[in-house]
Structures are given as C-alpha cells and as structure tokens.
C-alpha cells in the first residue's frame, strides 16, 4: 500500500465526512487513509448506512414478540406464521435517485428491496409501495409520476412478483423531494432463514449476479445530503436496473439455498461491495480479504475505489461452506450469471483489499463498524396547533363537499397507477389493490397475508407524536378491516435535515408515537429504513413515517373487503364519532386551511374496537368492512358504495354535532361494517363495550342523505375515477 496518502481533510469533507469524523478515521488506522479507504469510511459512516442521527431513537422501538424470528439489523425482518412458514419483509426508500431519474430510481428501488428479501432465503410474493409527489401544479410532478409508476411496474412486472398495494399522495412539500418507498414481502421456511454474519475463517467469499460498472458510485452519500439547485448533475450517481438479471438471481439463489452450501449471504445494495463485505465481516466478528482483480467488471481500468463504491445492481455476496464451490458454480452457470470467488474469510478482523499485487486498502472492521459516529442531535418540540371548533365553520352542502373531495387529487382513484402493475401474477392475489389492505394467499396452506402501507403526513406535521401513533394505528386498522390479525411492521422514516432541531423534533416525536402504538397493539417493528435530508434549498418535506404492515388470515376465504354486497343490509359505524376536524381533509380541501391538531389516538379504543371487528369478520357476521380515515364517515360510505356499486340511504344525523363534523370528522379507531343482522352485531358490540350505531341501509342506485338530497353511485364513481387519468393525459 502506498504510504504517502494525498488524502486531505478537505477531500474528506467533499466525501461527506466531518472534520471530526475524518480525525476518527485517521485514529482508527493510525495513519491517513488512502483514497479507497476514505471512500469506504465515507459510505460506511454516511447517514444512509450508519443511521448516525437516528440510531439512538430507533432503539426505543419495540422489536420483539412471540412470533418474531428476526428483528431489525438483518436484511429484512422475519415473523413466524405457523405451519413452519415465515414471512420476511422490509420497506426501503429510493427517494433521492427517483427524483433525479424517476424510472431507474424507482425500478432499482424495487430491485433492491426484492434482494433484501430473497437474500434471507424467502421467495418474494408481493410488492407494495408508498409514494409522495409534489403539487400537481408543479411543472415536474407529471413527469415524476409517470416515470416512477412505469419504473416500479417495469421492474416488478418483469420479475414476476405482483405489486398488490400501496399509497400515493400529492403535496407541495414534496415538490423538490419526492418519496418512493418500496416494500417487499416474501415467504420462507422458518427453519431455513439465511443471515449475513460471516463464519469460518478460510471459507470462500463469492460474488454472484451482474457485473460491476461505474454506475451509482456514491449513491449512499448522495442519499445523505440535501439537494441544492443542481440535483440534475447528480444523475451519474443513479443506478440502472435489469429486472431480467434479478429474476435469474432470485431463481439461482433460491435454488442454491435448497442445498447446504451457503454460510452467509448479503445483497450489494447501497455502498455495494463495501457495505456487503464490511457488514458480513462485522456481524461475524471476523475479517475478509478480497482480490479485486477477480471482481467481474463491465469495463476495464476500474480503480479499487470505483469497484468498492459502485452501486451496480443485481449483485450478491456469499460466504460458501468449504467444498461447496462446484455445486454453487453449477447453479449460477445454469442461470447464466457471473460467479467468481473473490476472497476468503479470515480471523484477522481486518478488511484487506488487494489489486494488481498491491494492498489497496486495509481497515480494521471492528472499529469501522463499532466506532461509527452516533449523534444525539439537538431537537425541539413543535408548538401544538390550536383546536378547530367545528361550530365556527360554515354550513355547506355535504354532497357537494363529498364530490369535491372525491374528485380532488388527494382522494381521486389510484386505478391509473395500479393497473400499470401486474397485481395478479403468481396466482395468489385474493384482494386486489384499491381496498384497505391487499390479501395474498399462502398456497397451499389456505392461509393468507394482509398487506398495507400507511402514513398521514399532515397529521405528523401538526403533531409528530400523534401522527406517528396514527400511522401505526391506521396500518393496524387496515389489516383488521380485511379480517387479518396484525403481526408486525416495517417502517420507512422519511424526514428532512436532522441537523435542524425542528426536524429532529419531528423525528423523535414520530418515533415516540409509533412506540406507544406498537406497544399497545402488540405490533412490533421488525425491519425498516431511514431517509433523512429530504430537503431542497432548506425546505423540508412533511414528516412521513411510512408504516408497512403485515397481518395473518387463518383462512383466505374469510377475508373481507370494502365493497357493499346486498341491498337491505345495514351499515354500522364502530367506534366513537366526536367530529374532529383539525388537520382533516375537509378543512384543507374545502376550507383551504392546513391547521389544527390531528385527531387524538386512543390506543386502548383502537385495540378494543379492532379486536371486536376482527372477531365479527371471523364469525361471518360482516359482509363488508372499511377503515375510517381520510375524509371521514361520508367518504368512507361513498368508497364502500363505489366499490360494490350499491347505494346507501343514510339515517338522520345525530343532533349533537354539526353536520360537517359528523360527516367529515376524522376521529380514529373507527370502522364501517355492512351486516345482514344488525341486531346481533349491536348486541355483541354492547357486550364488548364497543360503541356501535346503525347509520344507514344498503339499497338503490344512489347515496341518499336525510334532507340533503342524493347522488347516484355511478356519478360518484365517474367523479372519483376522473382526476388522475385526466391529469396524466395533459402534456
């Protein structure tokens, strides 16, 4: 190794390290790092890889539970679903790349999360996403929507994993920083989970998949800084996806995982070969030696720095059991993928890289991982918003308000998006996109998984703690509404610049709310991802802690949905309606006010009401069920009517609330259920101490309000379906 390093503190700062962090690196090495070593320190200590601003707070989240096989820290979380099966899942952001190059950014986001799941030995069975775009009026929004949606579809459709659900919202705070979070869910045998800790000094380190090119160098560092006005110049840091190679990689890895050949496996995601090799060595408490001359490359003349920092896609690193090389090579050659032995596990505790006969880098792994910076950044709690008194708002025609809400970007049908995703491939999609949660059968057991992604950023801005709790509670409700027992979540924490105390306060508040809700609902966090610096020129996104929830349905045939089924059935609201309009869609879309505190989250009521609804669904007493959230009761009724193409005649409204508060308030812990036997259901609710009230009757072609007119469900549907396709057709 050349001793005379010309790496300076200034170069370290260009790499995103602080002066103090650079000094720490020098102290660890006992000398100035060379360029390759600097690159390795800078990506391993980037916010993206080290979680240095978020770590101490993430550690407060509940991560254990009777069904949890593997919590955060590995490639994905693993939860026992009985019969020897395990569900493996994680959500991850690809926000920065997707803003710069929407198609490839979103596509490689899907590719990355798929790898996280099949790395653990699971066959991916479903993909979901959570998208946030800027205002529809912003000049780049249409282009970004189009690119992101076709990128997600282009990758998932080709790989052959159904994209079954997700969410999409528009808000001007995302004008300069869109959010593209992708979640993957896979199935494995509970006793055949693969982990990433290297073991057995002398074991071979094997590189499989696609070749390494010069794409994506320093992607992790880009994802750890805010954008200035020059975001477009960062295009070379975006990777290019190849779903066909990914498909081959899935099949090859799962085939080899049938054998007893693999000791440890790690996908090459952010920071590529660097983070995969360092993490494998670090978790095993061992060293790794790599011969970079043996790394399959796309172009000649690549330097050690480029090879170690490339984020080329569709690559994996494995440690093989001694004597398994021939078997592994046979499998990867069958699938026509690169396979190269590039190094071995050592007991030196050091990462040693060799190239052209020279040592290109040598770093002690323990300190590189264990002495990574951790920050307790200063934070402030946001001031609470003053309450909104519903009585102070004008009386308006509720049906006209309903139509405006259903026609608005926020509630308009997302069909235009999910019809571009193959949501049926693999032949197990029981409940398709468009409902509270997707339901995917676990064949041949007859079980099913319920899956959903949720977050209400406007709540999180107004009160991060309530917002964090609400995101968890809504996720739990959405799974409950299809009849599932919620199992666990994966979280994607999307926030602005953590070096600003108000942003850090949002982060800490959201975590606190999530923690309380997760504890009360027995709904642990088993994996997750943090995306900070979602900020352009000092303007941050709304705090967006996205919750990806997974639930279990013992018998797929018992799953329900929101579509009204039969004239004459009753519609019942479960839970208390207090008419909370603070931070509601009604207030924002109809009154033009983004103010007020979000609705309180009573986790005990959530639990009680949800457990009741689930028991009613399982008992066969519920024909349709819908979680009440955005837009409140009338929007919920309309959504059930449109899904089933049945009308509803609503009963007279309670006199104690203003009409707009009753119809559009966003009180939590509520569901709408359709039942043919309202008396039995009300009686059971009363016995369980659950508030329940009949609010109307299914029937006819229209949604009819007492004394306030009617509108045909057909017309509502046309209104609701119109906005997005029309918007996207404009050029």
């Amino acid at each position, binding site marked *: 190794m050349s001793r005379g390093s010309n790496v300076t503190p200034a170069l370290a700062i260009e790499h995103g390290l602080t002066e103090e962090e650079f000094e720490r690196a020098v102290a660890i090495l006992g000398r100035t790092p060379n360029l390759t070593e600097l690159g390795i320190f800078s990506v391993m200590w980037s916010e993206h890889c080290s979680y240095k601003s978020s770590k101490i707070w993430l550690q407060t989240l509940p991560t254990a539970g009777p069904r949890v096989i593997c919590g955060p820290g590995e490639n994905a979380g693993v939860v026992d679903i009985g019969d020897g099966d395990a569900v493996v899942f994680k959500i991850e952001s690809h926000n920065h790349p997707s803003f710069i190059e929407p198609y490839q950014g979103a596509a490689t986001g899907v590719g990355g999360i798929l790898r996280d799941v099949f790395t653990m030995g699971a066959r991916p069975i479903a993909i979901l996403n959570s998208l946030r775009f800027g205002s529809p009026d912003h000049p780049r929004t249409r282009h970004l929507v189009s690119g992101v949606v*076709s990128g997600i579809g282009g990758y998932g459709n080709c790989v052959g994993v159904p994209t079954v659900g997700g969410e999409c919202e528009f808000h001007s705070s995302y004008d300069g920083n869109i959010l593209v979070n992708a979640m993957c869910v896979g199935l494995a045998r509970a006793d055949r989970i693969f982990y990433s800790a290297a073991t057995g000094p002398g074991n071979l380190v094997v590189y499989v998949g696609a070749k390494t090119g010069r794409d994506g160098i320093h992607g992790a560092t880009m994802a750890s800084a805010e954008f200035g006005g020059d975001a477009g110049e960062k295009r070379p840091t975006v990777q290019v996806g190849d779903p066909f190679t990914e498909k081959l990689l899935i099949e090859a890895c799962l085939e080899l995982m049938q054998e007893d050949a693999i000791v440890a496996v790690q996908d090459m995601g952010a920071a590529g070969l660097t983070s995969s090799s360092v993490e494998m060595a670090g978790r095993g408490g061992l060293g790794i030696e790599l011969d970079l001359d043996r790394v399959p490359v796309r172009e000649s003349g690549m330097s050690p720095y480029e090879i170690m920092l490339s984020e080329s896609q569709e690559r994996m690193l494995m440690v093989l059991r001694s004597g398994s090389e021939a078997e592994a090579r046979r499998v990867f050659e069958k699938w026509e993928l690169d396979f190269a032995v590039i190094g071995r596990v050592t007991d030196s505790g050091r990462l040693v890289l060799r190239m052209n006969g020279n040592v290109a880098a040598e770093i002690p792994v323990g300190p590189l991982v264990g002495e990574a910076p951790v920050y307790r950044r200063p934070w402030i709690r946001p001031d609470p918003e003053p309450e909104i008194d519903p009585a102070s708002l004008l009386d308006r025609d509720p049906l006209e308000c309903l139509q405006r809400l259903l026609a608005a970007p926020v509630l308009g049908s997302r069909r235009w998006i999910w019809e571009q995703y193959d949501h049926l491939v693999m*032949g197990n999609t029981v409940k398709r996109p468009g409902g509270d949660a997707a339901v995917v059968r676990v064949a041949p057991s007859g079980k099913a998984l319920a899956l959903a992604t949720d977050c209400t950023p406007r709540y999180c801005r107004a009160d991060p703690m309530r917002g964090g709790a609400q995101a968890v509670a809504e996720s739990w409700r959405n799974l409950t509404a299809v009849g599932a027992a919620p199992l666990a979540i994966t979280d994607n924490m999307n926030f602005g610049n953590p070096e600003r105390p108000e942003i850090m306060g949002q982060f800490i508040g959201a975590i606190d709310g999530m923690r309380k809700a997760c504890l009360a609902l027995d709904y642990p966090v088993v994996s997750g991802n943090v995306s900070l610096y979602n900020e352009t020129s000092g303007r941050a996104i709304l705090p967006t802690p996205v919750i990806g929830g997974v639930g279990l349905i013992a018998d797929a045939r018992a799953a329900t949905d929101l579509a009204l089924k039969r004239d004459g059935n009753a519609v019942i609201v479960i839970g208390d309606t207090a008419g909370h309009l603070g931070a509601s869609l009604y207030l924002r879309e109809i009154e033009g006010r983004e103010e007020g505190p979000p609705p309180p989250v009573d986790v005990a009521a959530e639990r009680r009401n949800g457990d009741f609804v689930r028991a009613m669904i399982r008992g066969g007493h519920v024909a349709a069920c819908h979680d009440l959230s955005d837009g409140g009761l009338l929007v919920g009724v309309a959504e059930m009517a449109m899904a089933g193409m049945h009308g509803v005649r609503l009963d007279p409204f309670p006199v104690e609330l203003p009409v707009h508060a009753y119809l559009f308030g966003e009180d939590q812990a509520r569901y709408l259920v359709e039942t043919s036997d309202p008396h039995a259901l009300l009686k059971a609710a009363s016995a369980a101490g659950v508030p329940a009230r009949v609010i109307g009757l299914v029937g006819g072609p229209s949604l009819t309000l007492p004394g306030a007119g009617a509108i045909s469900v057909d017309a509502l549907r046309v209104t609701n379906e119109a906005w997005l396709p029309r918007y996207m057709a404009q050029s």
Partner: protein
Amino acid sequence: MRAAVIIFPGSNRERDVCAALARACGQEPLRVWHRDAVLPPNDLIVLPGGFAYGDYLRCGAIAAHSPIMREVRDHAEKGTPVLGICNGFQILTEAGLLPGALLPNRSLSFTCRDVHLRVENNQTVFTCGYEAGQTIQVPVAHHDGNYNADPETLDRLEARGLVAFRYCGPNGESSEETNFNGSARAIAGIFNDTRTVLGLMPHPENATDPLLGGTDGQAFFGGLVGALQ
C-alpha cells in the same frame, strides 16, 4: 393428459398455468427448461406468460430462436396442440407459428385488469368448453398486446374462423373503449390454419379459482383437457 410447459429464464406465469392445468386434469404438467434439446412425450405444449429473455429487444424475439423452439415447431407441425399465453403468444408470432405481431398497447402503458372477451369460434380443442359467442371475463397483464397484421391476413383470419377471442364489453359488444389496447379488429387471440395452435394475450389461467376473483377460465382448461384426454 400430459402438458409440457416451456420455461424460459424470464417466464413468470408458469406457476399460474401449471396450477390451472393441474386443477383441470389432476396431473402436474412437465416443466421443460429452454435449453433442453428434446421435448418429452406430451399431448399439449404451453408457452407461458412472462418476459422470456427480458424482452429488452422485442417481446419474444430472442425466445423464438431458442433451441427448444425447434422442437416446438416440429411438434406443432405434427399436430400437437400448442398454447401460447401473453408472452407465449408474442413468441409464437415471432417464431412464425402464428401470423401478425403484438405492438405496444395504445396507452403505451402496461395494463393489468379484468376484460371481457367474446368466444368467436368454439369448434377447437382450446375453446370447446365455451358456447360460440359467449362472453367471458378474464384478466390481462401486458405492455405489448396490440395485435396487428396486414389487411389480407386479417381478412383471411376472419374468413376462416381463425379469430379465437375478441375484446368486448360485458354484453359482448365491441367498442373502441372495450378494445383497450388498440388491437386490429379487437382481436385478443388467434388460431393457426389447423386450429391446433392458439395464441392469446389474456390470462384464462388467472380466472380459475373463485377465491381469486373469477372462474371464467375454468371452462377453457376444462374443455381443453376434455378434448385431449
């Protein structure tokens, strides 16, 4: 009845069609890897949906030249029924076993949704489970399903009863709206001259289980298995 399902490296609906066939005939189909030089004895060859070799060039273009396709062509010429679904249909046109081509959808987008089809000819092994003129509902999931051929070919297909399915509305009538991908004459599937090769874009295999939202594809596989057993 023994079916052989050809697996290309990018096939992704082989599980779906194998499940539908197994349900219809009680026997798991044989899975044949694309690099195999010889087809095992069989009564039916299936080219499933997917993206055979990634389809970065033109859908099905590379697959049409794979070694196994020589075998498929030989068997087809000897009268073995060949069914190509979605990507399989694209491969059959690229391989010259069916006329015409599948262009990008009119929307230029991938489209996954239920559509209605009218059964145009039920006098074949593939469609004998349906009534002539029957309307069925099955899903589509493709980006390049816009069927096209020169007018003489289209006229010949029509005149000889080689149009298998046409996109239509719930009551069987075709309109520009129901012909969502812009196919010539709303064609969703065609036969070869001997009606022993069928290519279609929709996925009857994804409409064979009441739990998954439709059963109109059951008669497709039921009829096919019945005719070949």
